[in-house]
């Protein structure tokens, strides 16, 4: 069977601005789970990783499994070289001036006999989840610490399953054990149907399906669907110390809603970008790119929208609405469906239009006396 005949459908991928081949027809869910991660704010505290681990993957057979991981770029990666390996085999990833991708997706680049261009990690590749932690791209020149801004860079990349619109894991599964839920777009592996062939582990370019050594079948991030069904954001989002995360639902690309904070950041302001859009999966975790990292690195990672995203982000302090959208991050455990900025506050609403978050655009400043007469003591450095 030739590769082209396998990709029986032409589907629209808005992130690469063109049609592409896929084995199933375009069938966007009623709602699509989506996240925005602001990389600039992540401190790699790994609270998200641990929250996920203790909730879902602390069982026997899941020892090396991190559905959520946070790695230091440029050198870190879990599993090791997950990105470098696929980037290397997916040759020539060029974009034209209009932002259309000219290279091949992992589906279009599938070699003879395969459904998807992929690779299978070794067990050891999962054994160093924090390799390269805090390592800079280069050493800091002598004295540069004191002279102001230096060139050395690194950043933290928090990663979960992207609940892709065109999942490679789903496409590769010969048993159709992987499905994408109509109601929220969450991608799941049916634990009673999987037979452990690991075609999904091989195919997912983000390496976000995992093999369980004890059950001998595959598992992946379930988007905390029991919480989503209750109108709550996932554990990794709720617990995020840096308040870098917002989970909501992304509207279909042809009908963005300006008052939906996810739509607003992704479609309207285009300040949050998909990770490796050139793979062709239409991933649904959107990243605000780190502003101090060399552009070449970011173009490769987030595509041609990087310049606009960084510029827009830098202007957030003067853009009340954008600031308002960003301030909703970490403001509530509930899922925010819409928001508006009213006077000096940003307000978040659930799907019933009830207010669930209210955040001031500027934190109020309280000046308290140096000597507190009431308790008879001096105050030092207390905000």
């Amino acid at each position, binding site marked *: 069977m030739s590769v082209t005949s396998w990709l029986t459908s032409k589907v629209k991928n808005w992130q690469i601005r063109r049609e592409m081949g896929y084995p199933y027809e375009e069938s966007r869910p009623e709602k699509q789970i989506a996240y925005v991660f602001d990389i600039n704010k992540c401190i790699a505290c790994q609270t998200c990783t641990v929250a996920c681990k203790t909730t879902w993957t602390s069982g*026997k057979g899941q020892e090396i499994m991190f559905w959520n991981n946070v790695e230091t770029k440029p050198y870190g990666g879990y599993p090791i070289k997950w990105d470098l390996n696929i980037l290397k085999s997916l040759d020539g990833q060029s974009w034209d001036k209009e932002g259309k991708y000219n290279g091949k997706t992992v589906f279009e680049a599938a070699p003879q006999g*395969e459904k998807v261009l992929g690779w299978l990690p*070794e067990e050891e*590749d999962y054994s160093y989840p924090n390799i390269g932690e805090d390592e800079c791209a280069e050493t800091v020149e002598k004295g540069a610490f004191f002279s102001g801004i230096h060139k050395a860079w690194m950043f933290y990349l928090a990663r979960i399953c992207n609940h892709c619109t065109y999942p490679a894991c789903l496409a590769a599964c010969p048993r159709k054990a992987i499905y994408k839920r109509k109601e929220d777009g969450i991608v799941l592996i049916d*634990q009673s149907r999987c037979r*452990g062939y*690991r075609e999904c582990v091989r195919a997912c370019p983000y390496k976000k399906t995992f093999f369980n050594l004890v*059950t*001998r079948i595959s*598992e992946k991030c379930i988007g905390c669907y029991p919480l989503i069904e209750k109108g709550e954001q996932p554990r990794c989002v709720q617990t995020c110390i840096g308040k870098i995360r917002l989970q909501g639902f992304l509207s279909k690309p042809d009908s963005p809603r300006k008052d939906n904070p996810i739509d607003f950041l992704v479609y309207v302001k285009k300040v949050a970008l998909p990770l490796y859009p050139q793979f062709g999966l239409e991933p649904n975790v959107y990243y605000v790119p780190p502003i101090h990292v060399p552009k070449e690195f970011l173009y490769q990672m987030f595509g041609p929208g990087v310049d606009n995203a960084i510029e827009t982000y830098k202007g957030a302090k003067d853009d009340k609405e954008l600031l308002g959208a960003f301030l909703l991050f970490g403001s509530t455990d509930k899922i925010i469906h819409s928001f508006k900025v009213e006077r000096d506050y940003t307000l978040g609403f659930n799907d019933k239009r009830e207010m669930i978050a209210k955040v001031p655009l500027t934190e109020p400043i309280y000046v308290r006396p140096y000597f507190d007469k009431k308790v008879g003591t001096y105050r030092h450095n207390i905000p």
Partner: protein
Amino acid sequence: MIKRLSLLLLLVGLFLINPHCANVEQNQNIIKSVTVKEVPFKDVSSGIWKKVPVTQVNVIPQNMTLPSLQTPTIQYINVRSVHNDNWIAFLLEWEDKTRDAVVDVNKFTDQVAIQIPLDPKNLPAFMMGNKGGRVHIIHWKAIWQDDIEKGYRDVQTLHPNYWVDLYFFSEPMIYAEGEFPLQPTTVDYFITPEALNYIPGAYARNPISIFHRTQPVEEAMAEGFGTFTTQPKQNATGWGRWEKGVWKVIIARPIVTDDPNDAPISGKTYIAFAVWNGSDKNVGARKHYAPWVELVVEK
């Protein structure tokens, strides 16, 4: 001269490939099941097998659906069959330099399977059957053989030094007071529903995730690619031995069963084969196969 030399080389080659060449039935398209008194269920070297004709069934890499197998590592299976009034058994032998009976992210187990049509008069597609054309599959896995003989192949089988401070709800208590915490190294520590909650495949009763197996074979039915379904009633048996680079596996089943999902065996039917080489990362559709071969059950 050159022609003659190459013919000679070809003949030499054939003998090298097939050490059992002398006994092999010339007709590859028929397997005769011979009547015997006792059917050997576990003894792969039983004298009974020696008296039975061998059919060499050539296998080829799966090339009909994606993913496919690009390069074969197994050339043929030698098949023998015996039966009595109650049971029919097959001895399957093939060369495989490595014994692969563990799994890991990138480790795969050796396997073999036989397939018989439910309706031999309307022969379904030889690869997993087709819609309305059901096949009955009996599938043996090396790792299941070891699960039974040596205990469940666990994390520590592969990685003896794996250490985890705490697995939730494992029993019996592993943190007895004043004692160094014990590692719950076998699945037997995970028995309560709470503990199984953290072992999702077992919780969902996936047939792949059974900790206490009684047979290294699984009986299944299929009607086309991707439809492999474990039969509710399991009545087949199996046993495998690997020695000096050769797997010998017995697969047996009752000749007459009351299971409507079992293929009938009487007089003439057909049998197809599939075989997987774990060290070459064969799994699922990445397999070798042989299409329908006539199976004649002696009266």
